[in-house]
């Protein structure tokens, strides 16, 4: 594989790590990135990091336990709504 091809693959892979872990790449593109990541330490680690990041963000939850302020309908009422 030429150096140019490897550089192309690397830059393209780095830009598509989220697509890869999300399953948003077509079959050929998915295979291309997977194959590149087997030989590229940075992209292999990039996949692990992206998976960890998505898990972490999903683990943030939607601030469960946070309650809306009591006056959330005040303006509705003031507008004559109630």
């Amino acid at each position: 594989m030429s150096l140019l091809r490897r550089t192309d693959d690397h830059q393209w892979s780095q830009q598509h790590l989220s697509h890869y872990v999300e399953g948003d790449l077509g079959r050929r593109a998915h295979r291309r990135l997977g194959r590149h990541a087997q030989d590229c330490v940075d992209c292999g680690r990039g996949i692990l990091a992206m998976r960890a990041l998505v898990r972490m963000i999903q683990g943030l939850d939607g601030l469960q336990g946070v309650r809306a302020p009591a006056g959330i309908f005040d303006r509705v009422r003031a507008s004559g709504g109630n």
Partner: protein
Amino acid sequence: METEASLVARARAGDADAFEQLAGAHADRLFAVLLRLLGDRGEAGDVAQEVMLRAWQGIGRFEGRSDFFTWLYRIAVNEANRALEKRSRRPADVPIDTEASQLPASARDEPTRQAENRELRAALDKALADLPPPYRTAIVLRDVEGLSTREAAEIAGVSEAAFKSRLHQARLKVRAVIGDETLITAGG
């Protein structure tokens, strides 16, 4: 228990109690989304009131082609963006209150790990807060709130393809800020 469709019909007919019941069922989650988008409890509360007022004033135009919560969230995202725009025009920016970082870490964690997790969580909150609003919205709706791409795109007011592009770009930006080493270690 009254169905959502029946509450919508009553609210459209001008029944404010029905509207409060309908919108009130989503109020906590809506406020949490605003808090994530705006990072400031006072501003999120203010915007939440505005969202409810606009929803009440516009309920007559809600035709049920989307879920009520999708429609309500769309108003919320628009209002949050409006607030962020206003904020950016102010001479001195309001500091982001990363309230989420003050939430207790899981009680199951060991003490040393808790400190690391708190630090990482604060870094993550900061990285999210620093994202441009469309990117932040994408992550909050899809990854934090767990909405489907279709729902999240509809709320953000863009096509699914455009939404996915924003989401992927947003994740890349956050990854660049936190760093692979930290993420892999924490993701262990």
